[in-house]
């Protein structure tokens, strides 16, 4: 309710003066936001005013009778209003829509992070983002959920441009599922985008289970229409992802992904992606997953010489596939986070819990490397050493009685001969890589050096 503002009573004898004065006062006040004062216009004064055709004065007159009776009430009321408006602190411009602050409506300098995936033209300042993340954290804790950011290509699905389909893959065109009702379908033909998409086996169960424990985000390097279309295939009802579909148009740095556009606290976000280099600032939150190469074009893209799954006319196994293994890891990390429920969860960090889960994989193994690292380098700095240590194994440079595994690329070395004598495991480096991707210690027999000879030293595919 607007309280018609006015200045203090004008003790003017001339009604014309009063009329003019009132007019100017009302003109200036109609635009301003200033605190209003009570208007104890005395009855006498208003009566003196000519009933000219000035509609504003008429309004004053009409409002006055109310005012007389409620004079006391209106004084206190308008005082409250003036208090309220004067106690309004200067607007902090927490964010902008278009280039206006969405709290005060003024035009402001456009700074802050752009959240284009929520709505076009929407930006939030860093402080506001932090505030929202804190609120989000509390809400998630009460729901016992964390955040999970999912990549699309080669992680949850594999897409190929129709032009790149090989002749031996043409049979797939007859197996495509209808786009009208996508539930239960795995392979889709998107004529209007000139693409064909294959969803990874187990992805529907994965999303269903994961959505119970995590708030799900999509973050892809595809463009927005592609991302939205894939979300429709994975999540036709919109129940898993909602509006949380981040595409490369929404990223802040080109060719890189970052958690700055994710409205969740970094210590409660896990990322599932096939490319480690896409997340330079968030390696600790990342679970690297094995790439899903269904189409031949996908293998070609990464310069792999092996045949793709479509050419082999097979597919990943559902219960024992990669997504299933990752789901187990996610469940484990989630339960560790919410363990002993109720206590101070703000001190828990999902990154350290992930490291903890990882260290259990090769726990108890002591590994020595033989002719795996170039001699000039420091062994401890080699990435494979680091990966092995991350998996919980202890690494050493010399053999001794406590060593359990020797990782080698060649049977002829002294360390390998020692291992065979002492009945220790001899494996090639694929054993460590497999443990890294599948989050489980693999049987050593599958990674023996004889296998290596069979396949050829340059073809180190990870065996499932």
């Amino acid at each position, binding site marked *: 309710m607007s309280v018609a503002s006015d200045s203090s009573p004008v003790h003017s004898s001339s009604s014309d003066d009063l009329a003019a004065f009132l007019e100017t006062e009302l003109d200036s006040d109609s635009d301003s936001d200033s605190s209003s004062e009570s208007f104890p216009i005395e009855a006498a004064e208003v009566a003196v005013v000519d009933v000219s055709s000035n509609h504003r004065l008429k309004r004053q007159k009409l409002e006055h009778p109310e005012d007389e009776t409620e004079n006391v009430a209106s004084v206190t009321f308008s005082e409250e209003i003036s208090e309220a408006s004067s106690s309004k602190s200067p607007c902090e411009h927490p964010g902008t829509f*278009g280039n*206006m*602050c969405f709290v*005060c409506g003024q035009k402001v300098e456009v700074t802050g992070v752009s959240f284009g995936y*929520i709505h076009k033209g929407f930006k939030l300042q860093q402080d506001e983002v932090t505030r929202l993340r804190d609120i989000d954290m509390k809400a998630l804790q009460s729901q016992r959920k964390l955040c999970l950011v999912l990549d699309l290509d080669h992680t949850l699905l594999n897409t190929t441009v129709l032009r790149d389909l090989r002749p031996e893959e043409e049979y797939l065109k007859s197996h495509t599922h209808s786009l009208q009702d996508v539930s239960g379908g795995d392979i889709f033909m998107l004529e209007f985008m000139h693409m064909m998409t294959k969803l990874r086996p187990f992805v529907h169960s994965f999303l269903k289970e994961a959505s119970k424990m995590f708030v799900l985000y999509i973050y892809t390097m595809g463009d927005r229409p592609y991302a939205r279309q894939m979300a429709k295939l994975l999540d036709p009802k919109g129940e898993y992802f909602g509006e949380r579909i981040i595409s490369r148009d929404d990223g802040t740095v080109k060719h890189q992904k970052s958690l700055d556009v994710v409205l969740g606290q970094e210590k409660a976000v896990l990322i599932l992606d096939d490319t480690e280099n896409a997340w330079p600032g968030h390696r600790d939150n990342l679970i690297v997953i094995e790439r899903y190469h269904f189409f031949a074009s996908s293998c070609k893209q990464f310069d792999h010489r092996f045949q793709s799954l479509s050419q082999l006319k097979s597919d990943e196994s559902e219960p024992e596939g990669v997504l299933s293994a990752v789901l187990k890891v996610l469940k484990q990390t989630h339960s560790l986070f919410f363990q002993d429920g109720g206590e101070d969860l703000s001190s828990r960090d999902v990154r350290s819990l992930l490291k903890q889960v990882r260290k259990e994989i090769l726990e108890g193994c002591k590994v020595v490397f033989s002719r795996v690292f170039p001699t000039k380098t420091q062994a401890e700095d080699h990435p494979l050493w680091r990966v092995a240590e991350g998996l919980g194994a202890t690494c050493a440079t010399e053999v001794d009685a406590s060593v359990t595994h020797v990782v080698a690329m060649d049977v002829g070395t002294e360390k390998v001969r020692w291992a065979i004598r002492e009945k220790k495991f001899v494996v090639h480096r694929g054993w460590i890589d497999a443990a890294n991707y599948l989050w489980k210690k693999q049987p050593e027999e599958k990674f023996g050096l004889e296998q290596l000879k069979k396949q050829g030293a340059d073809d180190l595919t990870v065996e499932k």
Partner: protein
Amino acid sequence: MFFHIVLERNMQLHPRFFGRNLRENLVSKLMKDVEGTCSGRHGFVVAITGIESVGKGLIRDGTAFVTFPVKYQCVVFRPFKGEILEAVVTLVNKMGFFAEAGPVQIFVSKHLIPDDMEFQAGDMPNYTTSDGSVKIQKECEVRLKIIGTRVDATEIFCVGTIKDDFLGVINDPAAAA
């Protein structure tokens, strides 16, 4: 707010349209070009209601196109700061909600939603009062006040509030009767 105003535009016409139907061609080209567009000054042109006058055509040097200055009456829609509008909610999230009033997109931030309304997440996210009597969710009609407008080449963005008296939900078609 809607306005009925007279605007002027220079229409270029290709000679193939000359002849008996010159005026009709001109008018239909005008309608195609102008209806549905947006300008900073006038807002959205909703519909052309009539042609006031068509001036003398001027042949452009170098090409055979002819430019006609056309004065036409049209209905335009332009939101103003301080205006009260009814809008339909399109998206609700924890930062506020987005609503649409015709071609205009309006954002109402959480800061400008009454403090007693809390955000409820779920498959139908909404803002609800503590006693559950008032609910703002997708497809709701709300009355809001515009506190800022910004005009783009093709769109108008507005920022609104429902924190004042008499603002808020008018009608919720999804609510049980």
